[in-house]
């Protein structure tokens, strides 16, 4: 076999490798659970957006065809469908229907939110993850569907493995593209740190001017120009190096930890929260998350025993 054919066969073996249905089920619970919680936490804001009737409407993406804002009852109805189908999706109830309905309703709600002149990049990855999960058998285990079906969960198979790999690909891909955009738009000059410094200052300034709070830590850090070149280099290494975490298993923990710390830094310096990566769930597909319940259960007796010892000692 020629080398390209061998390479393709190796990619196929890896992509099509079997996985336990519990891995995909855990990702369903985590990703859909996050998306549902996100909608519920942001509900007052999303209701405000659904009720807004304003000429500044600037539809994008899948809603670009709209001529103007939809009537408030329609927007509120889509929001209600998103919340209801989200709850069903987390529970794995009628997943083949509720999974796609939730993914599409979440897409509609978040696209509408980004259709007023400001695109919220915080929502992209969770939305893409939901769309992939929606076409996968993510409720073959740990779901009401599985309980209704009865019997043991299906044996590990390729259909439970490839969606996990696509989720991981999307995660590392979005970071790599963000890094590439910095080089494309800023050139190698992006590394001198001034672009980053100006961005942090500009973001704080515009928040001040509309009466919003901004990070006081960011204001302190801005006074120390020498901090920005290393911050810029680390940012680019993290983003452009993301695909390595997909290829090399032992890099996954350090890369995910670094990406999480990066978002913590953005939150601290700019008061911009990317809740999906900050929750850790954006990186969950890189790890055996199906072991989480067993790990938590195994920890409980140890914690209880430690507490008992504390009580006895006091």
């Amino acid at each position, binding site marked *: 076999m020629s080398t390209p054919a061998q390479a393709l066969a190796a990619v196929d073996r890896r992509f099509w490798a079997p996985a336990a249905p519990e891995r995909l089920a855990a990702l369903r619970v985590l990703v859909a659970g996050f998306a549902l919680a996100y909608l519920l936490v942001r509900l007052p804001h999303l209701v405000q957006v659904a009720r*807004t009737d304003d000429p500044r409407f600037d539809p994008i993406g899948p809603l670009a065809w709209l001529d103007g804002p939809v009537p408030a009852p329609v927007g509120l109805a889509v929001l209600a469908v998103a919340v209801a189908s989200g709850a069903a999706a987390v529970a794995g109830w009628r997943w083949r229907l509720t999974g796609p309905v939730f993914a599409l309703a979440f897409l509609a709600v978040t696209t509408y939110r980004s259709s007023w002149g400001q695109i919220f990049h915080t929502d992209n990855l969770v939305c893409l993850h939901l769309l992939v999960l929606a076409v996968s058998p993510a409720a073959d285990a740990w779901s009401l569907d599985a309980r209704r079906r009865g019997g043991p969960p299906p044996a590990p198979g390729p259909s439970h493995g490839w969606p996990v790999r696509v989720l991981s690909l999307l995660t590392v891909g979005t970071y790599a593209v963000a890094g590439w955009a910095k080089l494309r738009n800023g050139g190698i000059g992006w590394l001198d740190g001034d672009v980053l410094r100006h961005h942090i200052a500009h973001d704080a300034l515009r928040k*001040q001017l509309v009466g919003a709070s901004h990070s006081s830590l960011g204001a302190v850090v801005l006074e120390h120009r020498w901090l920005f070149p290393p911050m810029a280099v680390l940012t680019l290494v993290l983003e452009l190096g993301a695909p390595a975490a997909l290829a090399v298993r032992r890099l996954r923990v350090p890369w995910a930890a670094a990406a999480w710390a990066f978002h913590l830094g953005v939150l601290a310096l700019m008061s911009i929260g990317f809740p999906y990566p900050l929750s850790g769930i954006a990186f969950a597909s890189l790890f055996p998350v199906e072991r989480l319940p067993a790990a938590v259960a195994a920890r409980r007796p140890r914690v209880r025993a430690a507490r008992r010892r504390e009580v006895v000692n006091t």
Partner: protein
Amino acid sequence: MRGRTLAYTVLAAAVAAVLGPPLWPPPADSYPLSTYPMFSIDRGAVSQVATVVGVDEAGEEARLTPGLIGGTDEPMLAVATASRAARGTPAEQRRLCEQVAGRVARSGRDEVVAVRLQVEVHDSVAHVTGDEVEPRSVRVLATCEVER
């Protein structure tokens, strides 16, 4: 075989979703497909920012809130609202000015008697660090009284 076809179709769609927007000319940001342009373009040290401010009886300026400016509690929507109006026609500028004045009238901010849509020019770093608080220039686009 059907499962494999679906798997590779989704894989191809995912690769296209990530790589398509930045590679397809012209690279345009959208949702949920994005070029992820955050923090990539040099904005320079001097920033022009549109906003709406309140004015009291003595003519002193008072900062409003994202809710009063944009109609929601999201600061970035307030920024986008003011920027878009500032780029728009005088009628659009007037419209936002009146909308904000209406929201201020219902808000209990009794000290505010007028609102102004304006574009402020600042040295962003100097402003945020407190070295240069006053704007370098202010261009007023519309002024509206708050009617109670």
